[in-house]
């Protein structure tokens, strides 16, 4: 060995020694099912031996009961059962080894096989857990450390016993992939929802906009998402300019209605106007099929279903048009099949499909037969044949974000190749596989790749 190598070895040895000497982590070690474990001493209030715990009915199997620790009632958890390790059953009066732990404000006891001693180690020497650790779920392991020839598994007590927090829902978050994550440190679900709404709307930092988005969800079930965030941002700016920063919040349903009033597409709650119908008819891709299936979820009172049926019948008189119109509002849709109109309110283009009856003008039997009005919730299974045209205006926006995703995916699923999709005037189709084909102001898409 030359001098240089010897010097290096000496330095390495010193470093190792130094590292081992710097003790900044102490843990209480114990055994469970024959293996050695450790828990950070800062979480250990004391150790005790006790038995005859009071059984608690209906508790989880690993809860052995409660125990009176000098006047404090603490719950007793058997770690061996929690980790599905073999636990010897002692008789009634035998004493168990207990570690009394404190996590946040909770104090409780855990039963282990045998409590060993307190070991001081250097936190730098703790190795991260390996995913194939076996007995104990990796997320409950803080790390592994070697001390005097023994390997100790250090348990993460905070994770194990902290009060259950709701798993963060990733659905709304995904709406803004690039958005900032909610602040670390266990944000409540409510904060998360708000953060997600803000992210989706791209208005981070403006808390008021987040509140407005949340109030819309509360009052009108309107969810700001990728479907409508462009409109929401513009509308919010306009709203703030009009109402002033002081009075920007929506205090009641009336405010929410007012906020949303420009959202609705032309021809909501009425037959589509001459202009709008002509614009849609002109922008639609050619539909050469002999039978045209239209799916119209959220048809409301049915005006738009009639409008679409008339447009298609006029454009393709030879084709067999079938409109599957559905809505989950029974009151609205139950009137739809037998609608009666005042002829003066009916734009010219629809009149050829109407006949005069006893109570007023209504659509011809042939046209009515082409529309199936169904009381149906799109969130349930949709037994719709492959569609040539999907009309879903101002409906998706009023669903919860995760439902929006499901329904939009269902659109992609149910549409034939080349099919058209008409969404609300202020909505966009966020999914891939749809190409915008409409003029400005018409959210019309065709299914297919660019």
């Amino acid at each position: 060995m030359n001098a240089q190598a010897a010097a290096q070895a000496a330095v390495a040895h010193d470093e190792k020694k130094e590292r081992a000497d710097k003790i900044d982590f102490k843990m209480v070690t114990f055994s469970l099912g024959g293996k050695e474990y450790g828990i950070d001493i800062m979480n250990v209030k004391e150790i005790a031996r006790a038995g005859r715990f009071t059984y608690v009915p209906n508790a989880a199997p690993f809860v052995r009961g409660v125990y009176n620790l000098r006047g404090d009632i603490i719950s007793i958890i058997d770690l061996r059962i929690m980790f599905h390790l073999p636990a010897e059953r002692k008789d009634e009066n035998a004493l168990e080894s207990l570690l009394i732990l404190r996590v946040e404000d909770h104090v409780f006891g855990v039963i282990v096989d045998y409590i060993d001693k307190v070991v001081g180690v250097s936190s730098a020497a703790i190795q991260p857990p390996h995913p194939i650790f076996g007995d104990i779920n990796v997320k409950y392991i803080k790390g592994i450390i070697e001390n005097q020839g023994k390997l100790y598994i250090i348990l993460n007590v905070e994770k194990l016993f902290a009060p259950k927090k709701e798993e963060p829902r990733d659905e709304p978050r995904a709406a803004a992939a690039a958005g900032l994550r909610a602040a670390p440190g266990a944000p409540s679900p409510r904060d998360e929802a708000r953060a997600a709404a803000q992210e989706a709307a791209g208005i981070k930092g403006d808390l008021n906009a987040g509140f407005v988005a949340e109030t819309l969800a509360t009052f009108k079930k309107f969810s700001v998402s990728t479907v409508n965030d462009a409109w929401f941002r513009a509308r919010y700016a306009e709203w703030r300019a009009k109402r002033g920063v002081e009075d920007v919040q929506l205090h009641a349903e009336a405010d929410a209605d007012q906020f949303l009033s420009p959202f609705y597409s032309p021809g909501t709650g009425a037959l589509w106007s001459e202009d709008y119908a002509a614009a849609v008819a002109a922008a639609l891709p050619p539909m050469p099929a002999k039978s045209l299936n239209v799916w119209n979820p959220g048809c409301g009172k049915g005006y738009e279903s009639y409008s679409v049926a008339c447009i298609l019948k006029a454009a393709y008189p030879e084709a067999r048009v079938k409109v599957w119109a559905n809505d989950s509002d029974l009151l609205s849709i139950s009137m739809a099949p037998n609608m009666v109109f005042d002829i003066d309110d009916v734009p010219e283009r629809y009149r050829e499909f109407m006949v005069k009856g006893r109570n007023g003008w209504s659509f011809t039997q042939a046209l009515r037969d082409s529309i199936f009005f169904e009381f149906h919730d799109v969130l349930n299974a949709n037994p719709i044949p492959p569609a040539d045209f999907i009309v879903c205006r101002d409906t998706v926006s009023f669903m919860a974000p995760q439902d929006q995703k499901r329904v939009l995916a269902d659109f992609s699923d149910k549409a034939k190749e080349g099919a058209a999709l008409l969404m609300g005037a202020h909505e966009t189709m966020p999914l891939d596989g749809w190409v915008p084909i409409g003029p400005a102001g018409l959210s019309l898409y065709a299914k297919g790749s660019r």
Partner: protein
Amino acid sequence: MRVEYINPFVESAFNVMKEVLQADVRRGELFLKSTSMPVMGVAAIVGLAGDVEGRVLFDMDKPTALRIASAMNGEELKALDELVKATITELANMITAQAVTKLHELGFRFDLTPPAIFTGDNMEVSNQDVEALIVPMETPQGKVEINVAIRERA
């Protein structure tokens, strides 16, 4: 489910039950359901075919079935025997038949299968892909849920 089908079922259920029980029957709020649903204990099922496919299920618990059968037969029935089952089956048949007659008048062609009755505990009905309309009926004898799942033949 087509809007046109809803009323005939609701009306005939109401009329028939009111008539056979000679009592005040109230209808609860209608709603849609798609996941599997528990059956209360006695279920009579009538299949539908024709322009549509589907089924109608009459669901009630055992004490309700006994009380309804007792009321319909005009005697106190204590056990869930053949007579009780036949009575409940008949009730299902009457309601469905009347609804189908009404639908026929409206121009919809439906055929019925003979009713079948299921009894047992902890039963569940699952219909993949079909959502059911639930028509809850409150009678003095107990609650009966009429569960209508019909879909168009595409």
